[in-house]
């Protein structure tokens, strides 16, 4: 096995990150040209690409673990280079996206059966993942910004996919938000680059050697960057697009909320704080506390609004607003434990939220259920889906052994360590209670109330409660979320990996 | 008469040329009708050519500079062909029946 891997890494060489990005990109382009009716060819391509990518990521992971350095450089203009580089943090995100992409692809194939424009959909779907992986592997801010914009482009068609007025409106809103954000980020990056030179991500940050007179500019730049990234990370008040964007098909929502867009914003914030500014230097600048307050406000605000949504996906969307800010919160608290909490939530939130969206999609696709009020008794009709949903929801609340518990635990510990428990703990408590308040009634309806008739039953229960390609993805992701929490202290678990990253971030 | 003869004829020509140029510019800008615009442009051209010819003057004893002359000739050719094209288009515009 090791020899095989050695041979593989040898053959793929240092350009492995590039191949990983291209594996989905090229297939995405090819899929555009696949005839609408050639279902089998498209499915094969999709799955092949996803599996190949996952395998490549596996090899990369193996290589990184064995201390190999992967770097792809490409100078695009004087003093401006694209850099793909695999470090511990990027591996965390790349692995997450590659894994969830595979699952989501399976799900999407099942979900979009018989709907029009599938080639277009899957083409952009692949591009979207390429962009995500690209920005995960970006080795400097320039590369990051390029993939960040690319991501916006690739997701727009997915949001607009249904083509209804509502979808197009949502897509427009999405664009308006994310492009403005992207532009501000661009401005900030250029500004920073004019002050600090090449913006390669370095663990521990690169800015702390700058003279004191640049500090006020650095603060402004930080603000711009956070606004730019915060739009995608849905920090309040920049979150307006997210609840609207849930009109997109369920696999898209799943991807958007768990892996791609929202996560890209959060990941960017992590990158900027840790590998550009350096968390300790950011603290010196005094920018962490405001960031933390915004995150805290977002957490509470998102949860509160989620309470009032009857539309299931909308409720989940507001939940995302809230949950993603845990990552930001963890980033904004100075101290290794909080860092662990924030970074590990990057993975945990992804696993849990994708489960929830898959399940929501299953309800809609199988029974036509779109609203919480229609969910009475659905647990009996769709037990596995509802079980997955339950696990995801419990995780969101922070109930052990789900992954969310681990995140919250470390956030709490981090807050204690940093001496900010006084305001962080109430936020965590309030959020957990609110999460319970908007998730538990759903579970109650699903498991305890007698079933009414379903709004629109498309898929009859046969051997399984719904189409297999719809059923297994949520089950798998829910299991992963469970395992990530239950075996959090296992080597290579997200938690252990986050601790590894953290150990390197604090010099 | 002394005063008058002291005025360089070259200067006079240049002034006249620039004057024509200005009139032509004014006309091109102001007139709405395209035929008038074309005429104004030709007046402008005449002004420029006049100036060029004046520039070619190198005193009584020297032959005039050939280069501006060549330029003027080229310029006239260009102006004529452009005017012709413009007039053709105007004709076609008159004939066009769509809309």
């Amino acid at each position, binding site marked *: 096995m090791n020899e095989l891997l050695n041979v593989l890494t040898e053959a793929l060489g240092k350009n492995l990150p590039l191949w990983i990005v291209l594996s989905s990109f090229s297939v995405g382009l090819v899929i555009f040209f696949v005839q609408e009716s050639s279902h089998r060819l498209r499915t094969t391509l999709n799955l092949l690409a996803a599996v190949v990518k996952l395998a490549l990521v596996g090899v990369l992971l193996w290589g990184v673990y064995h201390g190999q350095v992967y770097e792809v450089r490409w100078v*695009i203009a004087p003093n401006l280079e694209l850099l793909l580089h695999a470090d511990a943090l990027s591996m965390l995100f790349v692995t997450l996206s590659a894994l969830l992409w595979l699952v989501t692809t399976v799900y999407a194939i099942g979900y979009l059966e018989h709907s029009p424009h599938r080639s277009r959909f899957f083409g952009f779907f692949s591009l979207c993942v390429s962009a995500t992986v690209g920005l995960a592997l970006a080795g400097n801010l320039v590369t990051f*910004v390029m993939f960040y914009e690319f991501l916006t482009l690739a997701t727009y068609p997915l949001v607009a996919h249904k083509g209804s007025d509502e979808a197009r409106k949502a897509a427009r809103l999405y664009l308006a938000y994310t492009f403005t954000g992207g532009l501000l980020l661009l401005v900030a990056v*250029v500004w920073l680059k004019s002050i600090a030179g090449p913006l390669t991500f370095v663990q521990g940050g690169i800015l702390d050697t700058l003279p004191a007179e640049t500090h006020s500019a650095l603060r402004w730049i930080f603000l711009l960057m956070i606004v730019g990234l915060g739009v995608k990370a849905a920090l309040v008040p920049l979150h307006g697009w997210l609840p609207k964007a849930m009109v997109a098909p369920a696999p898209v929502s799943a991807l958007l909320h768990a892996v791609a867009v929202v996560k890209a914003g959060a990941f960017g914030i992590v990158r900027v704080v840790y590998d550009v500014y350096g968390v300790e230097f950011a603290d010196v600048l005094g920018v962490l506390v405001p960031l933390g307050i915004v995150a805290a406000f977002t957490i509470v605000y998102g949860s509160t609004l989620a309470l009032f949504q009857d539309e299931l996906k909308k409720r989940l969307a507001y939940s995302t607003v809230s949950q993603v800010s845990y990552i930001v919160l963890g980033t904004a608290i100075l101290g290794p434990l909080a860092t662990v909490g924030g970074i590990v939530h990057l993975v945990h939130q992804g696993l849990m939220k994708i489960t929830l969206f898959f399940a929501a999609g299953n309800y809609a696709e199988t029974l036509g259920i779109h609203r919480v009020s229609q969910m009475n008794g659905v647990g009996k009709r769709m037990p596995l889906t509802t079980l997955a949903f339950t696990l995801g929801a419990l995780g969101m609340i922070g109930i052990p052994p789900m992954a969310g518990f681990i995140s919250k635990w470390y956030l709490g510990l981090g807050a204690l360590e940093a001496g900010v428990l006084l305001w962080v703990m109430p936020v965590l408590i309030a959020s957990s209670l609110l999460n319970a308040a908007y998730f538990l009634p759903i579970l109650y309806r699903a498991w305890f109330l007698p079933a009414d008739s379903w709004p629109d039953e498309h898929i009859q229960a046969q051997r399984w409660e719904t189409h297999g390609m719809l059923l297994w993805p949520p089950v798998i992701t829910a299991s992963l979320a469970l395992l990530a929490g239950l075996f959090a202290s296992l080597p290579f678990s997200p938690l252990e990996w986050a601790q590894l990253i953290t150990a390197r971030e604090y010099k | 008469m002394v005063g008058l003869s002291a005025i360089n004829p070259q200067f006079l020509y240049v002034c006249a040329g620039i004057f024509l140029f200005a009139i032509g510019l004014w006309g*091109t800008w102001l007139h709405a009708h395209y035929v008038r615009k074309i005429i104004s442009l030709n007046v402008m051209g005449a002004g420029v050519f006049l100036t060029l010819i004046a520039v070619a003057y190198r005193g009584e004893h020297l032959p005039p500079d050939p*280069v501006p002359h060549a330029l003027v000739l080229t310029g006239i050719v260009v102006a004529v062909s452009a005017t012709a094209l413009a007039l053709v288009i105007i004709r*076609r515009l008159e004939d066009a029946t769509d809309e």
Partner: protein
Amino acid sequence: MNEAASVVWVISLPLLGALLATVWRQYAATIGWVSSALTAGCAVWLLWVVQRAGVQELALGGWEIGLGISLYADGLAAVMVLMSSLVVLGCSVYARHYFRAQRQHELFWPLWLLLATALNALFLAGDLFNVYVTLELLGISASALTALGAKRAALRAALRYLVVGLLGSMLYLMAITLLYAAYGTLNAVQIAEALQVDPLGWAALLLMLAGLALKMALFPLHFWLPPAHSNAPAPVSAALSALVVKAAFYLVVRLWFEVFAPLTTPLLANALGALGAMAVLWGSWSALRAERLKLLAAYSSVAQLGYLVMFFPLLAVLEGEARQWLFGAMVLFALSHAFAKSALFLAAGILLQYAGHDRIRELSGTTQALPLTTFVIALAGIALVGLPPSGAFLGKWYLLDAAFKTGQWWWVLVLVAGSLLATAYVFRLLGHAFGHLPAVKRPVVAATQEIPALALALLATFGLGLGAMSLWSWLAHTGTGAGL
């Protein structure tokens, strides 16, 4: 073959083609695209020559410099020739099918090749009068091509285009006259060496700027552009927007940085930049309001030219390496726009053919039926907005960079506003690709129409966005002028 011959060939090949196409009308199309292809090949060769052997100067017919027609090819000129040749090639391939079964078919090719000739000759012109002649040739052929539209609107636009062109040329000619009167030469290099800061020089500069601003449709002299560019046949629109205005811009660059360098104060540069900024805002806003696709594209050109002018005030204060970078970025931006806009117009032409109109609101079904064309529009849109990867992105990057480095942050605001407006107008268009309108039965589009459009769009985005690094080294072989 003689290296300098490449300079001659890029001009004479299309000219020859134009003559042949006039004679053998039935083979006009073939002659057209073959000569375009050969020209493009020669353009590559020219660039290679310049790159290897440095600046090429050539006095035609053996006349000494100052008397005869002189050609001058440096890095910038070679790059522009390559740009124009590639766009012309793309449009030529496209036009074969586009004009199939149309009456203008035979008229198109000679004029089209003449346009290509004029463009290349203009880029390679070594003296100012030569420039005048090529400018007129360009104006006349472009106007005639516009008139091929044959509809009233097209004719009116062509006429106005012609008049404006003539007016600009006249202003330019007057400036030449003044310069000749003062320095007794028309050679750009010689004038640059002799130029004094005096009222005459100022007058000449302002006249030239005014004339060329009119020709490149710089705000507020842009009024003629939208009707002209939006009413011409698709390949013509493409060339007009991508190349013809770019020719005027090229001249401004040449004059500004090489000939009139001592006169170009930062104040003047800022004034020019301000016009550019207004062009950006006004052009983008108008594009956003445009009802028709081609009109949108035309207004977008106004805005994009504004960006190009916005480089001037920053170039005026930067020095050294950073200035070279910025200059390269400006050229890159111009290239990016040329390819993107030509791709956009070609794609618009396809839509227009199949939908019978180009009203944005009603394009939904057609865009869905023509995915590749829509994809081209999307790619072109990326380059127009300045999203990565595209040459425009890099251009904007350096523009921003320079604005921060020089502390002229107000350009940042313009750029942000302009980009947002651009996003809005591009996606207002693309949004219709996702509408629910009944999809038109999927038509079969000739590959020769879609492929060139796609190629140009890819060139503008991925080509220039990721592979433009050599541009700066090409431009290192650029001219005599002030520190370029």
